Every structure is written in C-alpha cells, then in structure tokens.
C-alpha cells in the first residue's frame, strides 16, 4: 500500500511488473474471492494462477486475454460503472484510477505473471563490490535523481553505532578514544569493539526474545513464574559467541534430538516451551493442546519463514499458497513434545519436563549434603524404631495426656505489641474482629473476639520487627508457637503484607531481660518451601528465615519453636518475643498472628492448636497391626520428635535439610523439551478442536516449498535443517530483513513477519537478496551486521532535509539515516548508564525493578504482591527485568515493549503523555537524576556551566548550545532558591532510591542539580538515536 503511494510521486514506469505493481492490488482486492482459498472462491474464478485466469468460463468469456485489454473480463469489470463493477461495492475496496490503468497496461503488455518474490530461490551471491549495500542503495537513488546525504558528524555516528549495536550510549572514554583516533579505519575499529562487547549480545538477545516470545511467566490465568531464564542466557551466549544461525536454529528447535545432546543444547530446546501455558481448573485439555501447538506454528512461521501460516489454521490461506493441511503438517513436527493441556503451576509436577543446572561446586555440595542427610535420617529412624519398640508405655501415656489436654497450645494475650520500623500493631483480646478466610474455595467471614490476635496495619516498611510482650503466669514451658492467621485483606497469599511470600527471619524470646535460646523448629504445610525451612527462624542468620511461598489450602500457618531448656516462669514474669523480618524480600511481613505456649514435651505445630496431629491420634486409637503405613510413619516421627534422646539428631537433620534447601534454591532450573511417541495430528476442520474427523497428517514442510527427502517420519531436527538449508528461500531473507530494521527503522520489506503477498515488495529487492546470500554463506550474524553498519548508507546524516522529507517522508529510499526512538529497555539503560547507576552483569536470574504498589492486584492464584530486588539487581539492564506477561513492568509497557504473549518482530513506537509521566516521575528515573546530579557535582567540574556541559555530554555525546545551557542554568537558579527556602523538600528529593545522598554538597544544591539532571534525562534527544 505504501508502495503505491510512493509510486504516485515517481515517473510512470516503462513496463508494469506483476510482483511490484499488480500483486499488491490483487492481493488487496481480488484474492479474497478469487484466490487460493477454495472455500471462499466465487464464480469458480482464480486470479492468482495465470493458467486459471486465462481459462474462458462456460459462457466463453476469458477473465484475461493477454495483450487484449478490451477483451479481458477483468479490465471490463474494474472499469464498469454499473453493478458489474469489481470489486463489488459491498467490499468497500474501490480501486483508484491509477490502479485501474495499471491493470489495463499490464494486460496490454501480455499479463505476465511472476512467482512471488520471496519464494524464488535466493540468487547466488555476487562478490562484486566490497560493500554492496551502498551500490544497491545508491543505484536506486540515482534512478530517483537523489543523492545520499553526507556522513554524519563523528559524535552522532559514535552514539548511533553504540546505541544500535549495544543498546547503550558511548561512555565518555569510548567516545573520546574514537574522536582521537585519526587513522582511516577508526570507525571500523570502533565498530569492532562494540561488536566484541557483551552488550552487543544483550542488544541482539532483546530482539530475539521478542520473536520467540520469551517471558518469565506462564501468561494464562494465574500467570505464575516458570523456570526459564537459563534459556535467555543461552541466547546471550549464542550471540556473544556469534554462533552460526543454522546451529542456533537447530539447537532451539531440536537441541534435545541432537546426537549426544549437550547440556547447552538441551537448554536451547526450552524454545519449544515458550508458549503460554494454563493451569486453570476446568480447561479442556485438547483445546489447550491445540492452542499451544498453533502458537508454536505461528511463532516458527513468523520468526523463520516470515509467513502467516497461522492464517491456515481454519482454512486454506486466502492470499498465499499455504493450504490448511500445511498448518497441521507443520504442527505435526512438534507432536513428539511431551506436554499436557493443563500445565500445573505448583507442586511436584509443576511446569513439566525440566532440568537442573548446578555448577560443579553446587553438584558436589548437593551430593555431599544429600548423603549426609540420608545417613542422618537412617540412623535417626533406626534408633527411633528401637526406642519406640521398647516403649509400649509411651503410647498409652500419650493418649491419656491428650485426653487431659496436655499437648494443647495455650494462646497468649499480649500485654503490648509494637514495631521497630513504623507498622501499627493492634491487639485484639476480647474485642471482636472480622476475619475473612478460605475453607477450600469458599470465603468465610467470622466476627469473633480476637483472643490474642495481633494485627499489623498502617505503614508498611520493607523490613520490620514486631516486639510482643506476654505474661504467661506461673508454669514450665517447652515451646513457643506462632500462629499466622490468614485474612482476605492481606495482599500476599492473604498472609503477608507484601512480596510474593512470607519470611520470618528470626524469632527471639527474652524472659525478664534474659535471652532464651531455641533448639528446634517445626511447622506443618502442604507445600513446604525448601529454602524457608523452619529451623532458619532460629539459626541466627538475619537473611534466612521460615515462611511460605505457597500455603496451599491452609488458612493459617503454625510455627513451633522448642526452648533449649524448659522455661520456668513465675506469676507476673514477662516474656518478650521478637519476630524479625529482615530478608531481602520486601514486606514479606506477617499480617496477623497469635502467640501460644506449650508445656508438653512435644506439641505438634497444628493450626487447630490441639498439639497432636490427627494422623498420630488416629494411629494411637487402633492396635498396632491395624495401622496403615502413613500412620506408622507419622507415629514414629512423632515419637522421635518427642523423645529427648533423639533431639540432637533431629536438630542435625533439620540443619542439613535447611542447608540443602538453601542450596537447591540457588541451583538454576529450566524447562526443556522432552521427546516422546508423537501424538496423532489431524487436520481440524475450521480449526475446531472438537472435530476429530479431519485427515491424519505427517510432519511436512509447506507443500509449495518442496518436500523433505526422508523415508522415515520427519522430526523437528529435519525441520530445523530445512529451515536453514539452501532449498529454503525464506529464512535468510526474513532474518536479514529484520536486522535491517534495527539499523534503519524499517525493513527493506516493511512487514517483517509477512514476506507473503500481503506483505510488501522490498524497496531494494536485489539488496535484500544480496544480504541474504551473504548471510547464507556461513550464517554469520555479525558479518551481516558489520556489513550494514560500515556502509555509507548507515553512516550518513539523519538530518531531515526538508526537500528529502517531502520527497520520501518515510525514508524508504534511504537518502538519509532515520531518527528513531530507542526501545523501552534502552530508555531505561540510557538513564542508568548516564547516571552511573547501571550495574553490568552478563546473564543470571531475572531481576525486579521498582514497581508501583498494587500493580499486580488484578492477579490471583496466588494473590500476590511484588518485591523489588535489592542492591545491584535494581540497576540491571532492561533485558534482565522480570517479564510478567499479563502485567508487564509499567515502564516497559509504556515504551511499547511487547507482552510477549505472541511472537512480535515489529515493535511499534508511540509517543504518549504516559511516557512523559514515566520519565519524569517513575522512581527509577528520579533516582537516576539524583545519581547523575551527584556525579555532576563530584566529577563534572567546579562550576555549574561545567557540570551542565559534563552531564549533557554523557547523555547525548555533545556539548549544549548557548540556549540549552541557559535553559538549564535558569532551571537551576530558580530551583536552588526554592530548595534553600524549603530544605525539607530538598531532602525528600535527594533521598530517592537506595544509596545515601552525597554529603559533600548542601541538600539545596544537590536537589537543584537533580532537577537539572532530570531535565537532561527527559530530553527528546536523550531517548532518540539520531
């Protein structure tokens, strides 16, 4: 469409070309009813194939008579002025006068058809010029009587190449080194350095992740996180090492099928697991398996084939020669992937096939700990059995004691409850309080006296310590209990005040000022988290703790802590309990709790406060021979725990479990592809998954593109081989076309995911083919990029010269460079890099930047909040930010990053007021402004003018003009006066973020400088690549 617009401004062409001139018109207006899809074909007429279009109908009228427009029905019909006009009125597809003339001219010239350009073989490479990019571009410009622009200024060029190749602005040192290099190939050397940097891989990875729809969460329903980041690191390493693209393709599609697949190749196969997954109860498995498979076909077809094969799910493609069968034959390649329609997102079966990726050290430690643990358990069990067997008396006594209520936890009524960091704690003893809690899936509401309930409200600091004083009266106590009570008002699992889990890092007790130690901790839970072991609440380590990341159906939790020595209290003695929450999880703090004490040797940590587990009680009530195996085990365990002889061993086991749990939590995991017997694949008539009547199909490539030569059932590996074989005309064209967009803002063919007839004929077809041929030589990605960025076409000025802009507003002829808003991730990276906050680290688990409170409020299963990372992880590149598909990080979403629910190869670029609000007010950008201001004061020189120049230079690689300097100086002076008058406001601003404010400057000076830095970071030029 755009093409035809361009034509209007160009001189009339000597000869009409089918691909360039006719196909776009027909594809838009004719093929819907007279194209490949037989089900919607009208009048039995097909215009996409020449022989068909020349056949006379029953009445003897031929649609097209080559050379004879007057005798050709299509010409008559498009020029008709009555109801016979084509396209018909109801289609709302009127042809313009020019289009009609073009059709007439084409028929007059013999109605020559051409095969669609992208399906023709890529012509062999022409090793003519050293850099042929310019040859092709400039030949076209010459035809258009245009001249290329001169080379951009060195500063602009340096910033452009750095942003395009690494997604970061050049540092002052990089820039100066380049500017001072007077050798003739200084630019080439500069480019080589950029290509060799890890940041290059990060930039390329970002684009690839969009295509393969990489994200950290499942996308459907609860949208829970799944183990996937090691795949992202695989992509990073592949680009860093410039892995040949054919190998890259094979490993992702079929890494698991490669002979003697390496760990790396298995990780690569996670590619097949990137589609959205649902764990919604009540989903119909067949329906979802069909959804996942269709998603895969769409992704492979868009990413490698630049084709909309997805359109053939329900019917033959309306415009391209894809039959519906082709869709299902492609789907059949993936039918061997072991998967389920409902993908569990919790418990042992969560996320299906996956693998661990321990380092050698981790593996050694894991084996060691596992062995120690199994030995300790074995010894413990043996001893427990011996002792238990000789202790008939114990069972009788236990039953008796239970009846007497000796095991019962005794709830305590606090005297006082206060916090260290500001949360308000309210005690409900006799006062009634409403509690909303779940029993199964039903929400219950109670209004009863609190009975010692402590409720945290008001300020909600990241870390908090609760101090509660109780007076238990005279007695001897063996254990302290902490009952955590659920309430619907609490945002995290209805248990914690924030974060996505609850973590109590330490529990401490003090009797009349003397510290009392705990020796053992137990808790009962359906889904215990290995790295939140109860013993971590008494291990003295402020970073580890007990808690829960999945409470299952428990509507309260209970932690039991055994005192080292029974604790004797006189009447009136005061016990002070501290509940610390000092972990890196922010606001993983208890919302509501009660405290309890027990006098029994061992009270079971149960929510009902009976102190004896139901399984044990049931076991005790039947004779030994009638006990079930679980009952026997529960009893033995209970015996062991209540036996003082075994205490030290129990403690040892708990420590080992905790240590192993912590280790396991640090070992990366990743979902992988597991191959199984291929499921039968049928064509689903009209895409209806309930219709099993369609034909069975085998894996095959789209029919019109050829046939795989294999006598066995073809596999994903065969598909991967074909995708990057010389027989496939599409992959190389598609990939280099996408690369081109990175460096000019639009592909040579604009519609990156559709090189079919509904896409766009390339502006420079020979160039696209030449680059594709270069690429196919040895699938060397860096080579193609290097070829592009060292061309004059890339290096020319982007100044929007009015005559050029008027002639070619969208810059498709490339007589100049384009000016582009950088990607969402780069917007963030620029602010972090310029301010000095950026923490470079290659790969690793995804990180969580600040995010507004309550942003995940519309999510459920589980109900959760967000805990921003700590320390360096707050300042990592946008690439590494946690990608929550249903609620993308706001600053990413606002700057057009895709949710990655679907393959996206062409991000849009918008300009909205929400972007302005983000750059102005989002805490990370305010913190960046403060960081930049501190560096301006520390390193930018002594005067304001120097500091402004220094910061400006860092942001946009040039010095400010007089007017720009003045704008910033004025802002500074006005605000300095304001902040001097209101030092409190200054202090507020300079406290943005985690680091302490610079002490060498006055608050007013630093605050006023921060407003200057903020203005610089908000400039259009700062987030634009010129």
């Amino acid at each position, binding site marked *: 469409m755009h093409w035809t617009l361009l034509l209007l401004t160009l001189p009339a062409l000597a000869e009409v070309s089918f691909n360039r001139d006719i196909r776009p018109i027909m594809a838009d207006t004719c093929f819907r009813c007279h194209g490949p899809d037989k089900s919607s074909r009208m009048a039995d007429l097909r215009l996409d194939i020449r022989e068909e279009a020349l056949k006379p109908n029953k009445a003897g009228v031929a649609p097209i008579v080559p050379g004879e427009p007057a005798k050709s029905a299509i010409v008559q019909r498009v020029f008709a002025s009555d109801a016979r006009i084509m396209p018909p009125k109801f289609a709302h597809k009127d042809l313009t006068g020019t289009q009609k003339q073009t059709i007439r001219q084409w028929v007059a010239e013999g109605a020559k058809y051409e095969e669609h350009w992208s399906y023709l073989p890529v012509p062999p490479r022409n090793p003519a010029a050293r850099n042929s990019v310019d040859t092709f571009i400039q030949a076209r410009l010459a035809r258009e009587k245009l001249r290329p622009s001169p080379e951009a200024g060195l500063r602009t060029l340096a910033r452009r190449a750095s942003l395009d190749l690494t997604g970061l602005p050049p540092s002052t040192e990089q820039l100066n080194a380049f500017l001072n290099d007077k050798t003739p190939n200084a630019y080439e050397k500069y480019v080589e350095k950029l290509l060799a940097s890890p940041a290059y891989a990060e930039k390329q990875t970002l684009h690839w992740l969009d295509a393969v729809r990489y994200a950290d969460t499942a996308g459907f329903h609860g949208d829970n996180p799944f183990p996937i980041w090691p795949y992202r690191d695989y992509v990073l390493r592949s680009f860093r090492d410039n892995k040949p693209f054919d190998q890259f393709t094979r490993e992702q599609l079929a890494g698991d099928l490669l002979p003697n697949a390496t760990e790396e190749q298995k990780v690569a196969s996670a590619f097949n697991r990137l589609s959205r997954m649902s764990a919604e109860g009540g989903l119909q498995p067949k329906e979802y398996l069909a959804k996942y498979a269709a998603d895969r076909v769409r992704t492979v077809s868009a990413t490698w084939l630049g084709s909309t094969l997805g359109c053939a799910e329900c019917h033959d493609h309306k415009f391209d020669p894809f039959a519906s069968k082709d869709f299902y034959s492609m789907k059949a390649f993936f039918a061997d992937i072991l998967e389920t329609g409902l993908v569990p997102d919790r418990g042992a079966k969560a996320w299906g096939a996956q693998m661990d990726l321990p380092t050698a050290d981790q593996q050694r430690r894991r084996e060691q700990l596992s062995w120690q643990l199994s030995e300790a358990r074995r010894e413990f069990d043996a001893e427990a059995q011996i002792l238990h067997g000789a202790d008939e008396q114990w069972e009788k006594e236990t039953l008796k004691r239970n009846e007497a209520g000796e095991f019962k936890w005794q709830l305590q009524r606090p005297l006082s409850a206060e916090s260290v960091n500001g949360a308000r704690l309210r005690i409900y003893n006799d006062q009634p309080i409403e509690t909303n809690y779940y029993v199964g899936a039903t929400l219950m509401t109670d209004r009863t006296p609190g009975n010692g309930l402590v409720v945290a409200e008001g300020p909600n600091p990241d870390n908090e310590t609760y101090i509660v004083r109780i007076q238990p009266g005279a007695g001897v106590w063996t254990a302290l209990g902490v009952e955590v009570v659920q309430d619907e008002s609490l945002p995290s699992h209805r248990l914690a005040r924030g974060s996505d889990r609850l973590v109590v890092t330490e529990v401490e007790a003090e009797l009349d000022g003397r510290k009392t130690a705990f020796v053992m901790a137990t808790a009962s839970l359906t889904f215990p988290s290995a790295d939140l072991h109860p013993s971590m609440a008494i291990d003295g380590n402020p970073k580890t703790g007990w808690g829960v990341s999945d409470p299952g159906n428990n509507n309260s939790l209970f932690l039991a802590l055994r005192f080292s020595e029974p604790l004797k209290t006189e009447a009136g003695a005061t016990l002070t309990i501290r509940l610390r929450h000092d972990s890196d999880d922010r606001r993983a703090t208890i919302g509501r709790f009660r405290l309890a004490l027990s006098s029994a040797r061992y009270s079971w940590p149960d929510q009902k406060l009976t102190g004896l587990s139901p399984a044990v009680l049931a076991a005790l009530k039947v004779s030994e021979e009638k006990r079930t195996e679980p009952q026997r085990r529960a009893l033995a365990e209970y015996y062991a725990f209540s036996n003082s002889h075994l205490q030290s061993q129990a403690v040892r086991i708990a420590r080992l479990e905790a240590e192993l749990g912590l280790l396991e939590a640090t070992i990366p995991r990743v979902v992988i592809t597991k191959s199984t017997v291929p499921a039968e694949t049928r064509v689903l008539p009209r895409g209806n998954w309930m219709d099993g009547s369609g034909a069975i199909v085998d894996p095959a490539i789209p029919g019109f593109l050829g046939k795989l030569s294999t006598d066995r059932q073809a596999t994903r590996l065969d598909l991967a081989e074909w995708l990057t074989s010389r027989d496939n005309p599409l992959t190389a064209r598609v990939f280099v076309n996408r690369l081109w967009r990175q460096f000019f803002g639009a592909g040579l063919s604009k519609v990156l995911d559709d090189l079919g007839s509904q896409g766009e004929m390339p502006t420079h077809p020979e160039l696209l083919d030449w680059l594709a041929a270069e690429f196919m030589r040895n699938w060397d990605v860096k080579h193609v990029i290097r070829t592009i960025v060292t061309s004059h076409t890339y290096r020319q000025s982007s100044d929007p010269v009015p005559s050029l802009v008027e002639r070619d507003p969208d810059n498709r002829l490339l007589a100049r460079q384009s000016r582009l808003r950088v990607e969402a991730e780069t917007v963030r990276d620029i602010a972090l890099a310029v301010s000095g906050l950026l923490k470079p680290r290659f790969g690793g688990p995804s990180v969580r930047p600040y995010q507004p409170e309550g942003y995940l409020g519309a999510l459920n299963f589980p109900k959760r909040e967000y805990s921003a990372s700590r320390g360096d992880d707050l300042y990592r590149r946008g690439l590494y930010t946690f990608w929550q598909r249903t609620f993308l990080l706001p600053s990413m979403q606002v700057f057009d990053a895709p949710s990655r629910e679907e393959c996206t190869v062409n991000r849009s670029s918008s300009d*909205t007021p929400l972007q302005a609000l983000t750059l102005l007010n*989002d805490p990370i950008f305010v913190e960046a402004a403060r960081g930049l201001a501190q560096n301006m004061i520390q390193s930018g020189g002594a005067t304001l003018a120097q500091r402004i120049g220094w910061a400006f230079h860092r942001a946009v690689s040039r010095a400010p003009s007089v007017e720009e300097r003045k704008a910033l100086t004025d802002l500074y002076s006005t605000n300095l006066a304001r902040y001097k008058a209101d030092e409190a406001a200054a202090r507020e601003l300079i406290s943005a973020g985690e680091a302490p404010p610079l002490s060498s400057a006055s608050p007013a000076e630093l605050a006023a400088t921060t407003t200057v830095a903020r203005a610089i970071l908000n400039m259009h030029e700062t987030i634009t690549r010129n």
Partner: protein
Amino acid sequence: MRPSHGIEIHRRTFLDRGIAGLGLLGLNSLLGAERWRGVVNPPHLKPRAKRVIFLYQAGGPSHLETFDFKPKLAEMHGKPMPESMTKGQQIAQLQGRPLVCFGPQHSFKTYGQSGQQICDLFPHIGGIADELCIVRSMHTEQINHDPAHTLMNTGSIITGRPSMGSWLLYGLGADTEDLPGFVVLTSAGKGGQMQPIAARQWSAGILPSRFQGVKLNSIGDPVLHIQNPPGISKDIQRDSIDAVNRLNRAQHGVLKDPEILTRVAQYEMAFRMQASVPGLVDMSDEPKHVLEAYGAQPGDGSFASNCLLARRLAERGVRFIQLYHRDWDHHGAVKQNVALKAQEVDQPTAALIRDLKQRGMLEDTLVVWGGEFGRTPMSQGGDGRDHHIKGFSFLLAGGGIKGGMSHGATDDLGYAAVEDAVSVNDFHATLLYLLGIDHERLSVKFQGLDVRLTGIAGRVVRDILS
C-alpha cells in the same frame, strides 16, 4: 510499521484533498501533537450514543439467578439433564461428572410497566426495568475465563487484537485533552471468587499503543506516576517541564524534526493530566445524597465508588469506560454468592443509570452490564454452577437502546440461546452501530487481513434499537 496503517488512511485523505507540504509531518505528528479525532470522521452512520460505560461482571454471572427465570428448571431440579442437550457440547469443570439439573436458587418478580422478569436479589435494577433492554440470548465460544474475556473484549481469541475500547478511541477519538480516552477500573468483591484479569483485556493490540486503555487505580497513584516525586512541588514540576520543552524546542530549531514537537505536546498533556486527575478522583464535591444513592464511600475501591467515578469520567469526555467487578465465578454456593454480589452491584448499577438520566446523559451514553459467559443449569458439587457458553444474559440501557424490553430467549432449562441468539460479534456490531460506526468499515490491515472488531461476522441487533 504496521500500526501506522490508520495514519496512512489519514494521510491519503490529506493527499487526496491536495494539501501540500504534509510530507513534512512525520507519523507521530499526525498521531500525537493534536487531539486525535478518529478515522471515522465523519461517522458512517448517525450516532445514537457518544460514549460507553461497560459494567463488566467478571467471572461469569449466573443468568439463572439474575435475569433469566426458568420455572421448568426448578421442576427438573435433581433430575438428569437431557442428554440430547448436552451431548458433544463443551464443558469445563464438570468434565466426566453426571449432569444434574439445578433449579434457580432465588425467586423472580416482574418489574416496571414493561413487566420485565428480574431476580428478587436485584430490586434497584428492577426499579429501572423500564430503562433496560435485557438480552437473554447471549452466547460465546470460550469456556475458560482468560480466553472468554479476550473474546468479549476483542472479538477474537487471537492475542494482539485491539479491545473494543481501543477500537472506539481509534475510530472516534475522545472529547478530552486532559484524560485518557479509554479508562479501566477494577473492583474486588467480598466473595473471594476472584479470577485474574490480564492487562491484555484493555490492550490496543495491533493499533498504536496510544489507543490502549489506562487503568485507574484505587491504591496509590490513580494513574501510574501521576503524582510528582517526593520533593518536587507543582511549581518545580511546571518549570521542569518548561525547561524540557525549551530544550526540545531548541533542538527543533536546529533540526526542524516534527517528532520533537510531538514530544513537546506530550509533556504538555502530561502536565494537564497531572492537574486534572486529582480533581477527577476527589469526590468531595459530590453531595451526600449522591454518595448515598450509589452507596459509595470515596476511596474504598468498591464497585459503587467506581460507578460514581464512571459518571465523572463520562462527564469529562472519556469515550469508553470499563469497570470490572471481579467475583462472579460461583462454582460453589451459588445461592449465597450471587446474593452477596447483588448487594455489591444492584444499587450502584441502578444509581448510575438514574444519575445519568437525571443529568440528561443517558440518552447519549450506552450502559452495558454483563460478563464473559453464564453458568450451567446443571449443578456443580450440589450447590454451584460451572462455566456456560451456550446462553447467558446482558443488560443494555441508554443511548439508542429501546428500554423496557427483553430480547431473545434460552430454552426452558436455560441451557442454550434458542430465540434471536446474539453472539459476541453481534454485540460488538451493535455497539459500534450505536456509536455511528459500520463494523464492516472500521478495520486495520494486519497480515493481509482487514482486521475488524467483529472478525468476519457480526450483525447489528436491530430489534433492540430505539
């Protein structure tokens, strides 16, 4: 760049009119510097409504305990569902379970002069029965929440299709320069049956992202980052924006790049939004009787407060206002749970419609009430109902809608829409029609298709038009 398609239309219009020099303006200049006035300008048809308030009851309200009375189902209570009805049909959590009829759990009455049948749990809605068109023959294709929401909002389950609010904004623009033209609010019910709602439900999809819905939050900033950071006063913010714009204008002076002026305009609009949003959410100017009529306590984030906010948004020129009330997934205890929902939504829904009417705004505001699907006439677990796609109810009122009527019907057991069935695409076609848009003519090109809100289907339900 695909999303620019609409702009191409725009530009072609200009070219056809022969306005010279337009090439100097880049894409974003057309998109951003001035208020967007829509691609359907002038409208295809005479508009009957200017704006839409969609009270989205998320989770799937039971039609059998709200607006579709089925005495026959009561008679059949406890008996097996006729297999002839259910055989081969989609089913969610009841897969593999016996299908047993479950009678309506609440009684119905007739309301208004029109004598519409409405469940006794909804007396306030009953009180405005003569304003309402009850559509009892809705049906959908998706039986799980997430895809069903996607279909209801975008007319398709393919990810990346624009939501109806985005279509309206793209087609018509909005009558405000200080607020987003498409606003989303959510509220949680007290029943705890809260299905997640993804941001995709208000996404602009393949349209430029400026057409996406903006969520107004009840916690923290009403619009993300609408408040100045700590230590930045209104004056400092104003001067900072002026400085940024001065810097940008300086660059524009050198380069004449119109994209820079677009950026300047966006900063101005951001400042205006900062000024107007607090006034929007500050309800202290609402008289007590209005708050009481809605049952709203400002700032509580309830459905009632959101209904009142919806009216304020409508007054300020927002085109599409969508309220999600999340708590209608009643697999169990449907009797108690619908009663609880009725307490939350009955009064405010009616109050909103009355309030709009009293202000003379109902005649050009389309109000929609409904969810992504209905619930089975069969019992789940003895006291609940499963997801159901073959028949459910919608309420429509206001601009261009005939009040006091019912449209369509399900069969005797409330299983399938059998009379004047209305698909999701039909609903969308009708909605666009009421706003002056021919649903077959509002499209964007994507992957060779003319993508429409109504896909390749949809027909305007003319019987319900006034």
